[in-house]
Structures are given as structure tokens and as C-alpha cells.
């Protein structure tokens, strides 16, 4: 049902009341007026008839009929009153001859009868007389005149006159009613507007709030009703409060979102229907998802690893929290620590689960390094020691008599001892480098001399293996560095090239100014043409004791720490190292130093 505007609720009632009152008053007035008028007319008729009767009495007999007629005529001019003289039989003796109608009628009418019996009588009848009052109501008053002859004086006045006068009054009243209606319409309209306009303002204001616009306020005119002023003030205050609270909530939400988004741990939330409700950026990255596309997807669509899926399913079924380590391979091979906790709503009912993912790969790798390192160190130290012990024991037991043999064994002991010493020395170097003795003395000096010195240190090997080492470095190239450390680094690289890259018979040592990457760096590279290094090892060659082919490097007599030392020397100078290699195509080890 359509709601009626205020105007249409006020107006009909107002109209009914006003018009009703006017009509009521009018009706009462008309009634009073009418009876007054009738009374007056009657009084008038009676007066005239009685007066005339008095005058006629003095005339007495028929002889004076003409005088009577004259009397009648004189009183008759322009008047609606008609007076007739009738005899007791009802015949008209004097008066307007038109009125000479049926005796019978006259006799029957109650005023005539009354006049005959009581001396006077009146009645109101519809006139049947031919003439202007035919068919209309007429008031008759009959009076007997006692003057010798028994005459009846009968006066009549048509009530039409009253009616006519009343009609005018009716019209006037109608006009007033019309005026009242018009006025009421206007007044009602204005009144209704006075109320509905501020209300419309209020309504528009609430519309704005629904759109999210909290900036508006309602201002009413002073002529508007006081209650609406109060209301508008209340609404303004409410608007302000809502605005404030929404802002606070949004701030809090933004804060929480920021925390959620910047967590390193991945967080996912699933509801009981196995739909993804929320996830943060870390989780999206770990699982190879796009946040906007993943939200709302089902468990199967989001999690592609069945072990993880089963774990989350269990979490959804069970009540408590649980955790597990799972290895996922999509999108990357990552070890994850997964933890599921039930998600509860305010009433304590289970709504879903929260899954927290922790990337353990890094931790696991460190642990692997550590384990490997410990194992390797033990091995590297034990091997020479075992040899020393063995041969020493053999010699002490006296089982070796041959002087040559003895010398041979002693030689081995010595070699192993110096190997042991080298390992320990390298370990100490590495250790001190790693401790971050950041205050390493650096000087700005030329690169070339350092390279040359390193070359000389391994010249014996080049001669032995018949490998050619080329040197390419400008005379003016310089950087800020510690010369002994740099020499050691270059030497280590050269030794590696000679040990493992000797197939190619050629090694290139090069130093250039490298502006790639935005800043000026000095790039020192050692390139060999040996068998190269397979991809899976490239990331790990700079690890302590990392060996690609254990058998081969042991033969070559290395400590396994050479590249590690190179890396740390580079880091100490604020530089970096990198290796490029392909199986069958040799290796290029590069070391960058910042040039100034």
C-alpha cells in the first residue's frame, strides 16, 4: 500500500472539520432564519387580515361591498399578499376574481373551517388556484368578520418568497464554504510543508549516509518546529558518531591487514565448507597462488599437495590444534612446518581452521650445512691424523728396517702433517674472516701487481701441467682493498682452475671495470676450459668443504675451504662472488670489488 504524503493525511481531516462546521452552522442558521421568516410572514398576514377585518366591520352590509373592494385594492398594490372576502358558503364576495375558485375547496380548507368555528384559522396548502401561485405552497389565514353578515376574510401569501430569499442565503453560504475550502487547502498545504520539508531534508541526509557520505549536516530554518530541530540535531550528532566509529574501525582493520600482510609466516583461513576465506601474501607466495583469484575457491582448487590437503581436512574435522612438517613441491620444493588451529566465532562454535605455514627450508639448509661441516671437518682432520698415527706406530714398532722405507714413511708423515696444518690454517682464516673483523685495512692501490703475485705463486703448477695462464688487466686499474687478502683469494681461484680445469690447458685471469648494476666495480675473473660444474652444484660450491666429486678433490689435495675463503674475502670488501658454468664448457669464477 503506497504511503500517503503528509499533506494528504492532514488535508481531508481539516477539510472535513472546517467544512462540516461551516455546514453545521449554516444549517442551524438557515433553520433559525427560516422559522423566523415564516413567523414574520405569518405575523404580517395575520396583522393585515385582522386590521382589514377591523375596518370592514364598520361597513357592515353588502351595500358597502364596493368600499370593501376599494379597501382591498388599495392594500393590494405590489404586494404578494392576497386578501379575499368570502361568505360562509365559501363564495368569493370581494377580491381578485381569479381567486374565485371552487367553493368546495374553500370550504374544505382548514383555515376556513377554523374561521367558521373559532373565528380564525390558518393552514399551509399547495395552491390549486389558477394563477401565479399554482402548485406552490401558500399560507392561508382566515378570519371571520362579524358585521351583520357573516363574512370570512381570507388572506394568503405564497411562501415562494421565503424560499427565494432563502435561496440567496444558501448561495452565500455555499460561497463561504467554497472560500473556506480554498483557504483550508492553502493553510493545510503550508502547514504540511512546514513539517514535511524538514523531514524531507532528514530523509535526504539519511540517503547520503547510506551512500557513505558522512560529511553533510542538517540545518533547519528558525520557523521550523522545535521538535524537528531537536531531531535534526540528534541526527547530526549521530552522523558524526557513526563517521568517527567507522573511521576507527577502518584504521584498526587497516592495521590488522598490514600486520597480516607483512607476516613472514603464511596464514590461511578455511571455513567448514572447505572454502578459502582469507590468506596473506606470504601464504599466496608459498603456495603459488594469486590472492584475488584464490579467495572463495575450494580446498582442492587451492592446495595441490595431497598431504597438506589431508592435514587441513583433519584440522577441519578435529577439535584441537595440530602440527606437522610437510614437504611441498609445488610451486617450489619447500619444507614447511604447518600448524592448524580451530577458528571459532563469538559463540564458541567452530567456524573453520586457521593454517599457519612456516618455511623451514632455510633452517633446514643451515642445519644441513652445519651437519656437513662438522662431518667434513672431522673427516679432514682425522684422515691425515690417522695416516700420521699409522705410520708413526709402524715406525715405532720397529717393523720397518729399511732406511729408504723409513724415510719414505717419514716423508708421508711430514706431508700429512703439513696438510693437517694447512687445513687448520684455512679453518682459522675462515673463522677470523667470518667473525667479521670488519676493520680490515684497505688501501687504494693498483690491481695488476696483486694478480701478478698470485700468478707467480702457482707458476710451478703451470709448468708441471703445461697450462697457459693469460693475464689481462690494465696498468691503471685500481680499487680499495687489502692486498694480502686479495692475493690469497686470487690464488685460491687459480689453484682451483689448475686442479680441476686442467683439461682445457688454458686459464684466463682477467680484471676489468664493470659498470653493470649501476655502480662501478672491479671484476676479477678466472676462466678455465675444463669439465665445468653441473647446475645443481653451482649454488653450493662456495660452501665450506663442499666437494663435487669427493674422490677427485681428495687426490688433488685441497682443503675444501678455498672457495669459502674467497667468498668471505669478497664480502669483507663489500663485494661478491659468482660462478658461471656449464657441463663440458668450463667455469668462470668472478669476484667483484667496489672500486672506490
Amino acid at each position, binding site marked *: 500500500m503506497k504511503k500517503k504524503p503528509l499533506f494528504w493525511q492532514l488535508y481531508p481531516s481539516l477539510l472535513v472539520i472546517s467544512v462540516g462546521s461551516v455546514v453545521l452552522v449554516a444549517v442551524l442558521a438557515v433553520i433559525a432564519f427560516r422559522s423566523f421568516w415564516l413567523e414574520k410572514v405569518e405575523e404580517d398576514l395575520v396583522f393585515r387580515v385582522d386590521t382589514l377585518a377591523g375596518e370592514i366591520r364598520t361597513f357592515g352590509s353588502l351595500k358597502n361591498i364596493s368600499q370593501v373592494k376599494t379597501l382591498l385594492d388599495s392594500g393590494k398594490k405590489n404586494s404578494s399578499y392576497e386578501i379575499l372576502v368570502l361568505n360562509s358558503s365559501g363564495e368569493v364576495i370581494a377580491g381578485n376574481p381569479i381567486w374565485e375558485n371552487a367553493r368546495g375547496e374553500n370550504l374544505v380548507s382548514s383555515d376556513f373551517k377554523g374561521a367558521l368555528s373559532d373565528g380564525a384559522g390558518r393552514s399551509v396548502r399547495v395552491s390549486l388556484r389558477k394563477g401565479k401561485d399554482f402548485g406552490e405552497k401558500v399560507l392561508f389565514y382566515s378570519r371571520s368578520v362579524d358585521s351583520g353578515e357573516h363574512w370570512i376574510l381570507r388572506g394568503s401569501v405564497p411562501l415562494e418568497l421565503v424560499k427565494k430569499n432563502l435561496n440567496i442565503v444558501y448561495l452565500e453560504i455555499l460561497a463561504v464554504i467554497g472560500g473556506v475550502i480554498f483557504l483550508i487547502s492553502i493553510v493545510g498545504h503550508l502547514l504540511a510543508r512546514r513539517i514535511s520539508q524538514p523531514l524531507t531534508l532528514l530523509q535526504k541526509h539519511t540517503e547520503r549516509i547510506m551512500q557513505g557520505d558522512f560529511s553533510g549536516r542538517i540545518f533547519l530554518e528558525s520557523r521550523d518546529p522545535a521538535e524537528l530541530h531537536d531531531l535534526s540535531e540528534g541526527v547530526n550528532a549521530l552522523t558524526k558518531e557513526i563517521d568517527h566509529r567507522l573511521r576507527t574501525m577502518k584504521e584498526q582493520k587497516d592495521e590488522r591487514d598490514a600486520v597480516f600482510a607483512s607476516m613472514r609466516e603464511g596464514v590461511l583461513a578455511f571455513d567448514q565448507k572447505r572454502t578459502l576465506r582469507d590468506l596473506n601474501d606470504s601464504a599466496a607466495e608459498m603456495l603459488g597462488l594469486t590472492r584475488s*583469484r584464490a579467495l572463495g*575457491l*575450494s*580446498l*582442492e*582448487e587451492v*592446495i*595441490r*599437495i*595431497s598431504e597438506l*590437503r589431508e592435514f587441513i581436512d583433519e584440522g577441519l574435522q578435529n577439535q584441537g590444534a595440530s602440527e606437522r612438517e610437510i614437504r611441498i*613441491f*609445488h*610451486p617450489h620444493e619447500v619444507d614447511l612446518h604447518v600448524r592448524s588451529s580451530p577458528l571459532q566465532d563469538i559463540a564458541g562454535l567452530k567456524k573453520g581452521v586457521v593454517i599457519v605455514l612456516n618455511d623451514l627450508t632455510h633452517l633446514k639448509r643451515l642445519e644441513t650445512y652445519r651437519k656437513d661441516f662438522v662431518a667434513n671437518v672431522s673427516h679432514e682432520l682425522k684422515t691425515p691424523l690417522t695416516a700420521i698415527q699409522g705410520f708413526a706406530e709402524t715406525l715405532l714398532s720397529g717393523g720397518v728396517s729399511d732406511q729408504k722405507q723409513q724415510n719414505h714413511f717419514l716423508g708421508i708423515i711430514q706431508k700429512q702433517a703439513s696438510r693437517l696444518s694447512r687445513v687448520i690454517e684455512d679453518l682459522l682464516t675462515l673463522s677470523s674472516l667470518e667473525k667479521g673483523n670488519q676493520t680490515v685495512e684497505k688501501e687504494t692501490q693498483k690491481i695488476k701487481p696483486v694478480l701478478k703475485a698470485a700468478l707467480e705463486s702457482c707458476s710451478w703448477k703451470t709448468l708441471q701441467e703445461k697450462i697457459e695462464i693469460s693475464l689481462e688487466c690494465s696498468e691503471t686499474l685500481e680499487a680499495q682493498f687489502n692486498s694480502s687478502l686479495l692475493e690469497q683469494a686470487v690464488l685460491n681461484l687459480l689453484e682451483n682452475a689448475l686442479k680441476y680445469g686442467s683439461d682445457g690447458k688454458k686459464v684466463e685471469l682477467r680484471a676489468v671495470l664493470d659498470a653493470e648494476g649501476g655502480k662501478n666495480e672491479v671484476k676479477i675473473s678466472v676462466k678455465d676450459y675444463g669439465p665445468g660444474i653441473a*647446475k*645443481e652444484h653451482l649454488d653450493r660450491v662456495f660452501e665450506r668443504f663442499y666437494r663435487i666429486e669427493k674422490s677427485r678433490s681428495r687426490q688433488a689435495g685441497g682443503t675444501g675451504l678455498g672457495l669459502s675463503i674467497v667468498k668471505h674475502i669478497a664480502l669483507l670488501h663489500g663485494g661478491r662472488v659468482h660462478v658461471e658454468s656449464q657441463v663440458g664448457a668450463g667455469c668462470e669464477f668472478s669476484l667483484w670489488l667496489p672500486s672506490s
Partner: protein
Amino acid sequence: MSKHLEVELSKLKKKLLSLSSIVEESVYKAAKAISDRDAILAKSVVEGDHDVDLMEVEVEEDCLKALALYQPVAMDLRFVVATLKINNDLERIGDLAVNIAERVIFLNQEKPVEIPFDFEEMARKTRSMLARALDSLIQYDSLIAQNVCRADDEIDEINRQVYQIIYREIRKDPDRVIPLIHYLSISRHLERIADYATNIAEDVIYMIEGRIVRHKPEEFSTED
């Protein structure tokens, strides 16, 4: 009635995705078993295939039931048909993973011979194709599917190169012929997995767009 159909199709998709995860894992584990020469891992792949077969039968039955009960039309019909085909492709991929895994066991019985080609790279590319084919299924994205189809050429080329390498290696050292032949098989298996992944992508395109793009290599030529 269509609400029931919706629910059924949604369940069907979830089952298919469950199966696809298991198969993806099998491929991953098989490849890892080769790299690590891990016979235990290889065995778990072989044994896990039984579940794959069971699930394949379940999915097929569910598809037939959906067709019979609900007589789907238009996209829904394409979905059920595509599911049937993808289901089949997945099961074959599972079998190929088993084939690869079995090689580990054979290889371990022979003298260790280094893989003469970059197996890990090939496996990675193949797995990536499979993963993306499944992505296109999950996300109803035919662009991703088309990329998968294009990527198949690369795998085919690698496989051809492997043949050459194996020939060369056998000639170089005929003693190593048995393990080298196994490696050749492995390369072939990977190539076929890539082909099935392409099939899955084509099925996804059919499901989304209603056009059948099999046997139309020019649709995916890299020269655009």
C-alpha cells in the same frame, strides 16, 4: 533440479582435482627418485598408482551417473565430457610416472652411470606444463591452456636431442648401453607426459570455448 546438478558437478570437479594432485605428486616423486637414485621413493610411486587407478574408475562412474541422471547441456555437458577425458589422461600420466620410477630400480642394479643430459631441467619443464594445465582447469583460463600447448614443442625438441646424445654415448662406450637405454626411455616417458599435459590443456579449451583444437598445431605456433 539444476541445483542438484550444480552440486554434483562441483563434487566431480573436486574429485578430479584430488586425482590430479596425486598424479602431480607421483611425477614429482618419480623425477626425484631418478635424481637421487632413491629406490624407496620409487617403490612408493609404484605402489601409489593403485590409488590412482581406483580414483580414475570412481571419477568415470560419477561422470556417467551425472550424464544419465541430469542430462546436462551446453557448458555443463562439455564439462562432464572434458572431465572424462582429463580423468583418462591423468591416469595415463600416473602410469608413465610409474614407468619412470621403475627405471630407478633397474638402474640401481647396474653400474652407476651419470645422466648424459639435463634430466632435472626436462623434468622441471614437464612438471611445469602439467601444473599449468591443471591451473587452467582450476581457473577456467584458456589462455594458460594455450601456453601449455605451445610449450610442448620444446619438450619434443629436447627429447629428440636426447636421442642423439644417447646414440653418441653408446658408441663412445658400449658397455654402458643398458643404463643409457634406460635413460632414453625416461626421456621418452617425460615427453609423453608432456603430451598428455597438452591433451589436458586442449580438453580445458574445449570445455571453456567449445572448440576442439586437437590436431591443429598451427593454432599454437610460436610465430603469432
